[in-house]
């Protein structure tokens, strides 16, 4: 491109157009979202314990949620991190096939998580309209369900996208960030799981 | 140091005219902060104006930026540092003052305090003087009689939404919240009627939710308390007798209590000694027979949204009812 010779220039035409992690815009966006939603989760957990501090019995004359389904889901979440991590790394290499397989796998995991989540909700042994404890448990659960659903939808859409001819560098970035967001959903399930399933047991004792 | 001298701040609902140790402590801290901040404000803005005036430049031309070096900024740097130090010192002074005041308020001796229960309602104050013998418990409304020079322990909560109990001449405010029991220690050193008002927005009639703290000598107070402990006097005149019947056969009885009669509902204020109070409608109207009549006929026109329904009694019934209520000294 024609430039006046006397004008000092900084030529950037050799810079990469595809970047991962901190080099990708989307990564920063996702980080922002996580910061926001993470704060919501933390404040909700804080509210849970605040309500506990204001009550005599916890949970108020009823059993804590049944452990089975929640723990099962926890296990499933943790396992799902393996294919997720695998396709995340392959995405950095631009390996379409691997990313396709990984995304399909994680989508299936996600759907399984949702199904199990349904049974979890059936075994919380409380109701949101009974008392503040019930409200807190259900809201905490609801928040996580919301993220789970959103991310599974994202993943499915991205999976479909990866079977079209629209695949390009940006899509691999998306794939990587999708994995990152999945870790967020998985990661926050651990504290929430502990609060919902174990806090009542420990606080009860 | 005192700001109470300032005209306009000598009213019966102002923090700067303290009539008890609580408000007095606060007034001291208030004045301390007032004088410091006023001085600082003047100095800072004076400096600002002067420096602008000295460095003012013509408007027509915007001069090109002037180069600055660490050297050229040395004096500025020193003065800013000095100003910062001064700020921190003064803040510290005011902070200590604040802590001292809090401590003083906290250390008001609760030992022999007179216990009084206050319950916030939309939009009036229920006042109780608890007594070990329940039947001697005095229940009244919107008027808190206290002996002068004796610590009072106000024990309060709310029956509905959040209200805030505040009589500035006596003590700082305290919120009355559903689900919470709270305690305020206070003391009135001057006889008189000190006005208080709800200070937390509580709905339609938040503006008309006031009360009076009546400081009186120990004797007067004990006298008043024993009077209030009595049941209502039975009606002596036929008119009053009929008035009582009106009361018991109309809506009144559904909400109000008159001890010594079948009327025992706790929805509205206890009227056993209503005639002994100076105001009605939570301090809004002087307790005259005319106001009382208007209030009974259509409270909604006076205090829209309040819980007292209109009662369009036939003229004679109303007269008798009023006559009866007037006997409830």
């Amino acid at each position, binding site marked *: 491109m024609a430039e006046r010779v006397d004008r000092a220039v900084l030529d950037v035409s050799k810079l990469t157009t595809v970047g991962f992690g901190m080099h990708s815009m989307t990564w920063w966006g996702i980080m922002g979202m996580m910061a926001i939603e993470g704060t919501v989760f933390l404040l909700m957990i804080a509210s849970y314990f605040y309500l506990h501090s204001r009550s005599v019995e916890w949970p108020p004359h009823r059993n804590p949620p049944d452990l089975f389904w929640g723990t099962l889901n926890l296990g499933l979440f943790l396992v799902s991190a393996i294919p997720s991590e695998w396709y995340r790394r392959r995405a950095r290499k631009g390996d379409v096939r691997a990313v396709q397989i990984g995304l399909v796998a994680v989508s299936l995991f996600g759907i399984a998580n949702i199904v199990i989540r349904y049974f979890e909700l059936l075994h919380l042994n409380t109701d949101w309209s009974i008392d503040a404890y019930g409200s807190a448990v259900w809201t905490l659960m609801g928040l996580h369900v919301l993220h789970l659903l959103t991310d599974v939808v994202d993943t499915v859409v991205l999976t479909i996208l990866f079977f079209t001819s629209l695949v390009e560098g940006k899509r691999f970035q998306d794939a990587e960030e999708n994995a990152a967001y999945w870790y967020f959903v998985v990661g926050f399930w651990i504290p929430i799981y502990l609060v919902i399933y174990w806090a009542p047991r420990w606080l009860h004792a | 140091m005192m700001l109470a001298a300032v005209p306009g701040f000598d009213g019966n609902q102002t923090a700067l005219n303290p009539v008890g140790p609580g408000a007095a402590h606060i007034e001291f801290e208030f004045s301390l902060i007032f004088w410091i901040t006023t001085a600082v404000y003047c100095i800072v803005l004076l400096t600002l104006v002067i420096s602008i005036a000295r460095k003012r430049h013509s408007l027509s031309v915007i001069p090109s930026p002037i180069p600055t070096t660490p050297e050229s900024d040395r004096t500025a740097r020193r003065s800013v540092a000095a100003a910062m130090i001064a700020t921190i010192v003064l803040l510290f002074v005011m902070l200590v003052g604040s802590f001292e005041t809090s401590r003083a308020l906290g250390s008001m001796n609760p030992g022999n305090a007179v216990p009084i229960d206050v319950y916030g309602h939309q939009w009036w104050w229920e006042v109780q003087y608890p007594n070990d013998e329940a039947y001697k418990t005095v229940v009244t409304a919107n008027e808190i009689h206290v002996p002068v020079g004796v610590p009072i322990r106000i024990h309060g909560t709310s029956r509905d939404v959040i209200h805030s109990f505040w009589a500035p001449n006596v003590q700082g405010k305290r919120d009355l919240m559903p689900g919470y029991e709270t305690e305020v220690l206070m003391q009135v050193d001057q006889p008189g009627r000190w006005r208080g008002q709800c200070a937390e927005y509580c709905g339609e009639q938040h503006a008309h939710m006031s009360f009076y703290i009546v400081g009186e000598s120990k004797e007067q107070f004990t006298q008043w308390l024993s009077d209030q402990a009595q049941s209502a006097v039975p009606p002596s005149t036929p008119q009053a007798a009929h008035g009582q019947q009106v009361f018991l056969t109309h809506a009144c009885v559904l909400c109000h209590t008159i001890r010594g009669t079948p009327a025992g509902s706790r929805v509205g204020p206890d009227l056993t000694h209503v005639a002994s109070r100076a105001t009605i409608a939570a301090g809004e109207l002087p307790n005259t027979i005319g106001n009382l009549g208007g209030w009974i006929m259509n409270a909604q*026109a006076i205090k829209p*949204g309040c819980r007292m329904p209109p009662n369009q009694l036939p003229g004679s019934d109303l007269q008798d009812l009023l006559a009866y209520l007037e006997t409830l000294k």
Partner: protein
Amino acid sequence: MRATIVILLVTGVLLVSGCKREQRVFDPGSTGSQIANGVPLNEVHAGGTVPVSNASKYEGSAYAVGEGKRLFEAYNCVGCHAHGGGAIGPPLMDSEWIYGSHPEQIYSDIVQGRPNGMPSFAGRIPDYQVWELVAYVRSLSGQLPSDVAPSRSDEMPVKKAEQAQPKEHPADENPQPVQQGRPQ
């Protein structure tokens, strides 16, 4: 643009219902504040007249229904009817209506009283409070729109919030509102 129109339409609907729902009449005026009495509803009487339309005015206003809920406690209706489930008095949440489920009928139940314990409020409370009670009582069995019926109370939850109450279908639901206020 189109979506803005959609939004405007939605809000337009709210506008119509909203104005009525949010109405807060504090001073019921001379008619409303007349002390209710037991006269037959169809008989014209100073302030005592109860036009059929009157009910909707109260059943449309969330504030009026809320007041009704408060009076239901204040006037100790709960004493016999509990919070709608019934105890000494009949339940008010079901589709069973001994004296009819229409507002005018419930009005006269309250004003005239009924055999076996239902006292008459005639000559005691003002007309408009009766209507507020009527509106609330009908909300107990889900007869009112859910955006008008009260939400949960700040008490021990003993039943669904009125606004979440499924609509019961009384036997006399469909026939025209009775012209004659007296129970058939």
